[in-house]
Structure formats: structure tokens, C-alpha cells
């Protein structure tokens, strides 16, 4: 094994994965029986984005759009490029016969109602993350997927990003030693507020800015942190056993009800820790996950992964010949405690593709082949429950012990761990 193997993405390996997914770009080769008709519940910003992605997959048609805000119909039809049927009641959409699969992109607090109804209507469902707003919602969605046996994929698109998968594989292989900590952040510098049409503020504020109000929203942890929590749960092969949190409405005091900054610390059964931070007043650090192992580190962003090797020392789990030597500051001011500012080894991971597109392609393939998606209801449940209990730690201002809310937490963790080993 050489350094390249430790650090570099083997282009052939990942290329093969990417080609497998990218193999078919043309709709001509899709048999009529393999066309997938999709109905959409929730045609807001995220819904429209995912509709565009689905329409880039050969053999997909949008056959129904549902929203309670009428301007979304015109916007949605602009995305589909045709006079797609529109509904203002999701039950009507689910009654339509020309729908094979349903995309649910509604506010978090409505996921359970919409996803369960869609599963009960015998449709495959792509449900946006986070899985559900409460532990109970998450349980209900997972149980409905199991009960109906229908395909359910949760919108954790980085599950399909090659550079994330490669990082998981290398971490699993012990390439950065034992992972003890993950520091995740999603730092922005904006109000997280959507503009409301002039003169209609009173009627539309809560509808368009639902993310800012507790009734429907899980806040920054649900909307942003879910991806990172999903990744941490996969790295540690378990759900956390406890969470503490801090945060508040400290800068954007504009009537919102959810925190504009939030820090949550999750402890995992193996003694590992996830420190997750969300701020809306500074974007220096952007969105990233820093995975710290005894032998090295990985920094993941939305587009790439960078690998670092710890300087050789007796505790290093990685043989020195595999090391990328840190170019530590030398000379009289040398200090081993200085942060490392040099470059690591960058790896984008095979064919660069949009993670949402990869996730949509996987979903459609699963619908056609009746295959279970990788990001299934179990993956979603693990993520959704972790988010819900992280939020609970903040709301209650105390340490939340997961087993108090999940009778079968241990076995659930074991299941997840088992799944990870298999995949």
C-alpha cells in the first residue's frame, strides 16, 4: 500500500461507480413501462429544485403538483415546462391514477402526515430531510415504510456523494486511525429569512418563513445539521447516547421563534463526540465536517474531501510511510501546538456530480428495480431522531439521554451498526 493509495482516490474505482449511475443519459432507451410519473407535495424552493433534478433523470415525468400557496402552481409548471395537473389538497393528488412516486418537500412538521399518506397510497416516496419533527413523527414514518413495504428514500443526498462514500470507506478501513471527534459546522451570514410579497406580510409570513417558527420547523439543526448528523452516525456506526445544547435568538431579533445560532454536543456509545455548530452571523468556516482520528483527519465539504495525516508518533495508527508530512512551522518559533495551515491531499471523488442529482437517479432506479435505497427509512430514522433530541436538549436546557426517549435505542444503534458493516 503506498501513499497514493492511502490518500488518493482510485479514479478507476470511483469512476466505475459514477459510470454505473451515469450510464444512461438518454430517454430513448427507457421502456414505456419504466417511465416514472412523479407527484410533488410541496412546490416551494426545495421542491422546485428537486423537480429539476428529477427531470434530468431519463424517463421521469412530473404528473401532479400540490401546494396550498397558489403562486407555486405557476412556478412549478415553469419548472416542468408543461401544464402539469395542480392540486391544493394532497389527498386529491394521491387519488390521481397517473402517479407512481411522490416527492414530499413540505415543512418539517408536515412530513409525517404527507409521507405516511403517500406510502399508504402504495406509492414510492422521496421524503425530504429531516425525517420528522419529533421522535414520534420519526417512529410513525419508519413504521409506515416497514408496514407498507414501499420504497422510501430520505433526502440525505450526501449519502450518494462519492467523496463522502470514499471518506466513509477509508475511515472504516482505519486509514485515519480511531475517530474520536467530529466537528461539524454550517456557518452562514444571512438572516435565513425569505422575502414576503409587499402588503401581504401579515397573511404570508408564517407560510413562507415557516423555518423561523416552532410550529413547523426544527430550525438550523434540522434544515442544515441533518446531513452532518447523518454522516456522524454513519462514521460512529451508532446513534448518540446523549446531547447537550446551547443557543438562542441573539442577533436576528425579528419576531422569529427558532434560534439564530445553536451549538449541540452529542456523545456516542463508543466514547466519541460530535460537536455541531450553526451560526447565521459569520461565514468564515462555511459548511464542513472535520473528522479527527488518532492517525489523521478528513475535512469534508459539499464538493470535496481533504485528507491529513497526523505527524508520526507512537499513537499513530498509520504507518509513517503512508504519511503526508505536515509542513509544520520550523525555526526558532516552532511550536507543535500551532494549528496546521498547510495543504492536505485533496480528493473530489470520481466524476464530479451534483449530490441531489445522484440521489434522484438512485431513487428512480430503486423505483424501477424495486430495490431498497441506501438512504432508507432506517437511515432517516437515525438522523431524524438525533436531530429531534438535539433540539429537545436546547428546548429543555438540560442533557438529554436518548434511551429515555427510545426504549430500544441500544438495539437500534446495533441495527445501524450492523447495516453499516454490511454496506
Amino acid at each position, binding site marked *: 500500500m503506498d501513499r497514493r493509495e492511502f490518500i488518493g482516490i482510485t479514479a478507476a474505482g470511483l469512476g466505475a461507480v459514477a459510470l454505473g449511475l451515469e450510464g444512461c*443519459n438518454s430517454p430513448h432507451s427507457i421502456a414505456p413501462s419504466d417511465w416514472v410519473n412523479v407527484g410533488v407535495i410541496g412546490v416551494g424552493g426545495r421542491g422546485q429544485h428537486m*423537480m429539476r433534478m428529477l*427531470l*434530468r433523470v431519463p424517463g421521469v415525468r412530473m404528473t401532479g403538483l400540490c401546494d396550498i400557496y397558489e403562486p407555486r402552481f405557476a412556478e412549478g409548471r415553469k*419548472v416542468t*415546462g408543461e401544464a402539469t395537473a395542480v392540486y391544493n389538497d394532497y389527498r386529491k393528488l394521491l387519488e390521481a391514477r397517473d402517479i407512481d412516486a411522490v416527492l414530499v418537500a413540505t415543512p418539517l412538521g408536515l412530513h409525517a402526515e404527507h409521507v405516511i399518506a403517500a406510502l399508504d397510497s402504495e406509492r414510492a416516496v422521496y421524503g425530504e430531510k429531516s425525517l420528522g419533527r419529533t421522535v414520534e413523527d420519526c417512529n410513525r414514518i419508519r413504521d409506515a415504510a416497514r408496514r407498507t413495504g414501499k420504497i422510501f428514500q430520505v433526502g440525505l443526498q450526501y449519502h450518494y456523494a462519492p467523496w463522502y462514500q470514499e471518506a466513509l470507506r477509508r475511515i472504516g478501513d482505519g486509514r485515519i486511525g480511531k475517530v474520536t471527534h467530529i466537528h461539524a459546522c454550517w456557518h452562514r451570514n444571512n438572516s435565513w*429569512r425569505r*422575502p414576503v410579497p409587499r*402588503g401581504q406580510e401579515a397573511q404570508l409570513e408564517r407560510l413562507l418563513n415557516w423555518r423561523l417558527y416552532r410550529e413547523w420547523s426544527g430550525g438550523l439543526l434540522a434544515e442544515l445539521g441533518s446531513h452532518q448528523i447523518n454522516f456522524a452516525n454513519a462514521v460512529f456506526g451508532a446513534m448518540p447516547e446523549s446531547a447537550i445544547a446551547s443557543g438562542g435568538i441573539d442577533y436576528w431579533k425579528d419576531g422569529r421563534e427558532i434560534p439564530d445560532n445553536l451549538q449541540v454536543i452529542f456523545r456516542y456509545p463508543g466514547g466519541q463526540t460530535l460537536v455541531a455548530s450553526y451560526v447565521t452571523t459569520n461565514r468564515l468556516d462555511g459548511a464542513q465536517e472535520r473528522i479527527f482520528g488518532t492517525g489523521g483527519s478528513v475535512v469534508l465539504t459539499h464538493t470535496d474531501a481533504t485528507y491529513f495525516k497526523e505527524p508520526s508518533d507512537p499513537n499513530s495508527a498509520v504507518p509513517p510511510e503512508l504519511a503526508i508530512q505536515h509542513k509544520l512551522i520550523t525555526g526558532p518559533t516552532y511550536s507543535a501546538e500551532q494549528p496546521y495551515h498547510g495543504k492536505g491531499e485533496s480528493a473530489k471523488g470520481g466524476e464530479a456530480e*451534483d449530490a441531489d442529482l445522484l440521489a434522484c437517479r438512485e431513487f428512480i432506479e430503486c423505483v424501477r428495480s424495486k430495490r431498497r435505497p441506501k438512504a432508507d427509512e432506517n437511515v432517516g430514522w437515525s438522523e431524524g431522531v438525533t436531530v429531534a433530541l438535539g433540539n429537545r436538549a436546547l428546548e429543555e436546557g438540560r442533557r438529554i439521554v436518548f434511551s429515555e426517549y427510545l426504549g430500544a435505542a441500544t438495539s437500534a444503534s446495533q441495527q445501524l451498526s450492523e447495516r453499516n458493516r454490511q454496506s
Partner: protein
Amino acid sequence: MLPTNDAVENAAGEVNLRPSSHQTFPNPCGANLAVAAGDTLRARSHRAMGTEFVVYLDAEDGVQARACFDAVFDEIDRLEITFSRFQRSSELSRLNRHAGEGPVVTDPEVFELVATALDLSEKTGGAFDLTVGRLTRAWGFAGGQPRIPEQSELAAAKELVGWGNVILDAEWRTVQFARPGVELDLGAIAKGYAVDRAIDMLRSLGVSALIDAGSSSVAAVGEAFSRGWKVGIANPLDRGLTICEVELGQRALSTSGVREKSFVHDGRVYSHLLDPRTSDAGEAMPGTGAGQVLQVTVLAPSSMLADALSTAMFVLGHEHGSAALAQFADCSALWIHSEADGIRCFGHGWPGDDFLS
């Protein structure tokens, strides 16, 4: 670059313009924005698509203005991620990677923009060409160091440039190239499209606003201060001087000029506005040569159309350009040529003609 005269900048980089007297704020696209005493404009800039987008809002409510800025810039970023030639995960890059192998299905928004670009390529006889990217790269104008390419490089690029290489199937929504190696470059149209989408968004929000995209595109919605949005067309030889003023109503404005990106070699000025038909870089020597096109400004019903046509009108020049422009409803153009003693202006349907030759 945001104007700074009499401006108050807050921590978020937002600038509120409070001029003490009537004055014109020069902006980098050759258009000058007129703001009168007592008016308050909020402005914020954002870097995307290789240029600087500046949004000016006539909004009293600061919270709402901030949300508008964020929403507009999010939408512009989305379109950059979609149409970028440089980001490997963009939809355009995916088409460029695979359309040489066979038909590739894409979403209606992308298909429509490609189809529009192809239609404009045909109507302008290739003066605007959606496959010009390889040529731009050969000349080093695509992020590299601009230079005169080797003949072999130019010949290789020429083989792959030509809108006839793009095959679209509207029924199946597929894009295909006649040969491998062809590349789509929507740079001269995507920025205008982004402005159009931003304007649509602001219109639906009931906001009066002007958007200036870097060195070429300006569009407005609503009536600022009940007087409309007025912009001035700058003299390419002296940006401080205004040649004429235009009121932006339903039409968007786009300017193409040699000054945006150019380099000098052996005393000749080579512009990024390449002629895809001949593969030559536009040549001009501002202030010295006579009859050279220095700048073209187009008014069109959409910013997307104005963008593409200002590029094409620059390449075609006044005479051929006028004939081509006649195919497009409600479009006007202003050509500024260099003369031995200054500049000369030619118009096609241009509002106000007292300064025209």
C-alpha cells in the same frame, strides 16, 4: 463595485445611498444610475458568474430588503451552479461531458436556455455562437492568461466551434453534439437570464429594484421614487462622461465593449469578443483607429436577449447588425465607433437620436 459617494455602508456590506444633491453614480457596466437628492436606495453586491452583481432596492423596510437581497443572490447562485462551465458538477458540465456520446436529457429550464441560445446563434449567422467556448479558451479569455494562440490550437478549436454541431430534440428534451469535443458556453446569455429571473422574483415581491450585472447587463422592475429608473450610457473613451440617458421600463440593457477583457500585442488591442465565424479576436485601438467598434449597447425585452444581442451586434458591426436586429421585436442598439477625433454613434431604433451620426 458598489458606489461609495455619499453612501453609508453597514456591517453586512449593504450600502444605503443618500445623495446630498442630484448625482449620477457611475457603475462598471457603462451605465450610470441617476439618484436624486432625498432618495434612499439600498444596494448590495454579490460575486457570481465571474462578475459582480449589484442590486439596488427602493425599499424602506430594512428587514425585507435584506431578505430580498438574500433571495436574489441565492437564485443567482443556483443559476451559476447550473450553467457554469468551470464547475464540474454543474448541469452544463454534465452536458458537455456526455452530449458528444449521445443524447442527454436535461430539465426544461436548461433545455430552454440552450434552445434559445441555438436559435440566437442561427439568427445572428453565428456572430453569437453557443459553442464559442473552445475558442475563448484557445485565446486565454476563459480564466487563463489572454494571448494569441498557436495556429494549431486555433485550428483545433475551429473544428469544434459552430452552432450546427448542436442537435436538440424538444420532444425528448435532449441535447446532443454532432461530434465529441464540442462544448456549450452560455456565458454570454446565462448572466442575462439570471438577471431576468431575479427581476421576476422582485416583481412578484412587489419591490422596485435595479440589477446591474458586472460589465454588461442592467434591468429594472417597478418605478423607483415614482420617476422610473434612469441609466446613462458612458462614453467608452471617458467613463465619466455620459453619452445619453435611457429610462429602463420594460426593457433591459446590455453593453459589450472592448474594455471588459482585452490585451495588447504589438500595439493592437485584442478583445474577448471573438468572432466565432472567423475565430479572430475583435480588434480595436481605442482613440487611435477610425471606424472600430468600441462599445455596443442593446435594449431588449429581456436581459437574456440583450446580453446575447450586444455580443452579436459587436461582432457584426453597425451595418450588418442593423439588418440582423430587424428580426427581433422591440430591440434597439447603439454602436459607438472610434474616430480619429473621438467617437461616432450609430443607432437602430434607439430612443432619442440627437447625438447619433
